[in-house]
């Protein structure tokens, strides 16, 4: 602030009446206080940088210990993940497969249904319905994930077992579907935002050409909102990949390299939970392995998040 220069000028004179001296001292005190406050606020803002750096540092430092024992090549090519067995194998592929299969099932539910629902909400519904649906979707997004885990294990899987009697109690299909239902409000909300951001004139132009609402929605609004929609999907993927409690409860605890959603399999997150629930000594390879698994997870979600945000920025800048 430029008031500081004024204060310095007033501080220089050698002899001055007490009152002025006092006023100057008060001002200096006030400026000091202002600077201290700004410094404090800056430090608070720095917490987010510190958190990010610490996350990376903790994941890397514990993983380095892990990768001293386990060669990177084994980590990415071994098809077994049995760190706690007498004859340990450390191949991340089974956990990665579990994560990808449950996420894929979730996305197969969330993306088509979510997109159609978002188109309906943005282009067809009355504003009253929209006013009710938006907060409702927000509410649904706030339900604790452990509750969704309960649904997956005790409601959805038993329902699926009526269709496939052979379906095991722990499987990837049930939790995958529940993940899909869980991220759907998020996908709908972001997709709807993207479509609402498409300027009205584009729709009006299309209507003037004689297009119906549906044609306008599919051929004008959706293409114009593509990057925003893709961003919504990508951020949805990132959520599905990082989802923990649903899969930890309902997908099973055994790493299993399979692409069949009807089988049980552990995901990266489920493995971390499983190890954390046990009693592993600090510094053991099992303890380090959850950080290595966490590092893989963090890198995946970082990548998806960055991609998502770049895309979101792009659709904002177009208009």
């Amino acid at each position, binding site marked *: 602030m430029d008031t500081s220069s004024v204060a310095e000028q007033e501080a220089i004179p050698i002899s001055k009446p007490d009152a002025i001296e006092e006023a100057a001292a008060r001002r200096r005190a006030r400026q000091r206080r*202002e600077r201290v406050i700004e410094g404090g606020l800056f430090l608070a803002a720095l917490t987010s940088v510190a958190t990010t750096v610490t996350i990376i540092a903790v994941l890397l430092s514990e993983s380095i210990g892990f990768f001293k024992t386990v060669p990177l090549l084994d980590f990415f090519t071994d098809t077994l993940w049995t760190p706690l067995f007498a004859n340990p194998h450390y191949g991340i592929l089974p956990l990665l497969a579990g994560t990808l299969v449950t996420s894929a099932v979730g996305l197969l539910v969330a993306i088509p249904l979510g997109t159609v629902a978002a188109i309906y909400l943005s282009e067809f519904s009355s504003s009253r319905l929209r006013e009710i649906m938006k907060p409702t979707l927000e*509410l649904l997004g706030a339900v604790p994930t452990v509750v969704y885990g309960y649904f997956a294990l005790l409601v959805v899987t038993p329902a699926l077992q009526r269709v496939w009697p052979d379906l095991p109690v722990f499987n990837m299909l049930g939790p995958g579907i529940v993940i899909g239902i869980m991220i759907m409000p998020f996908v709908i909300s972001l997709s709807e935002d993207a479509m609402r951001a498409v300027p009205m004139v584009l729709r009006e132009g299309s209507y003037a050409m004689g297009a119906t609402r549906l044609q306008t929605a599919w051929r004008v609004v959706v293409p114009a909102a593509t990057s925003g929609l893709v961003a919504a999907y990508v951020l949805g993927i990132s959520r599905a990949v990082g989802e923990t409690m649903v899969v930890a409860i309902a997908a099973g605890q055994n790493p299993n390299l399979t692409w069949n959603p009807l089988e049980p399999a552990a995901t990266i997150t489920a493995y971390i939970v499983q190890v954390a629930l046990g009693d592993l000594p600090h510094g053991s390879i099992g303890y380090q392995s959850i950080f290595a698994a966490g590092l893989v997870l963090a890198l995946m979600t970082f990548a998806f998040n960055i991609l998502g945000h770049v895309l979101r920025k792009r659709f904002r800048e177009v208009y």
Partner: protein
Amino acid sequence: MSTPSLPHSTPSIARRKFAEALFKIVGLGSLTVAVGTLALLFGALLYQGVGQIDWQFLMSYPSRHAAQAGILPAWVGSTLIMLVTAVVGIPLGVAAAIYLEEYARKTWMTELIEVTVTNLAGVPSIIYGLLALGLFVYILGLGESILVAGLTLALLILPVVIVTTREAIRAIPVEIREAAYGLGATKWQTVSHHVLPYSAAGILTGIILALSRAIGETAPIVTIGALTFIAFLPPAPFTTQPPYISFDWLLSPFTIMPIQMFGWVSRPGEDFAGNAAAAGVLLVGMTLTMNGLAIYLRYRMRKQVSW
């Protein structure tokens, strides 16, 4: 495009109208699936759980017998952890938001802070658990305590608090600030006397949303090593001896409601499913109440504010 002749165009229009009507049904159907499935699931939860909830359930310790098991340590733990989270997370988040909105100049540092806030919002919660396990539990040696859980959740809600507070502050018109400066107020005086009080409702909304997220978080707390079976309460914060106040509870082991529910869900056998459902009803009830309150506050604000 060829000019459509009349007999040709009539069925085409009919077809388009049909497609439109069909899509409306499909769209409404998807929306119903999104909301209706969940309504159905909550119905199932309520059906299974609500009968279990009574005074005894709220005031009992966990037990090997489903009928006697209760959630006393869980809700006490949740409450204490929320206290730590709120005391740490809210001032930090609000202060950071004030800095970013009111003070920050466009520098690479500001840019870096903004990027990290956005990024942290998307980090899976279990990663915060690993951070807490590595940093708080082992490097700082704080153990699997209420303090660690509270700090972990404080970091977790930080992005939410920052983003919602910034939105609330940004809604205050710049003229308010200019008027304050014009009367000779300093920056902090402007912020503390005008910007913050006027945006208080918006900030409160954000805080409620953030705490409601924290109260349901399970994965990071499981990761730091919380137990699912705790049959005692943390030491009381008040003592009979001077200085009458004790912070021993901060370092006490604990359990929380979602973890208690997780423990019951993963127990084999039908017995504990009812307990899990009851805990679920309470959890969902709590988060929905908090969120509903926040949404209502925001709605009221939008109606009233007339800058």
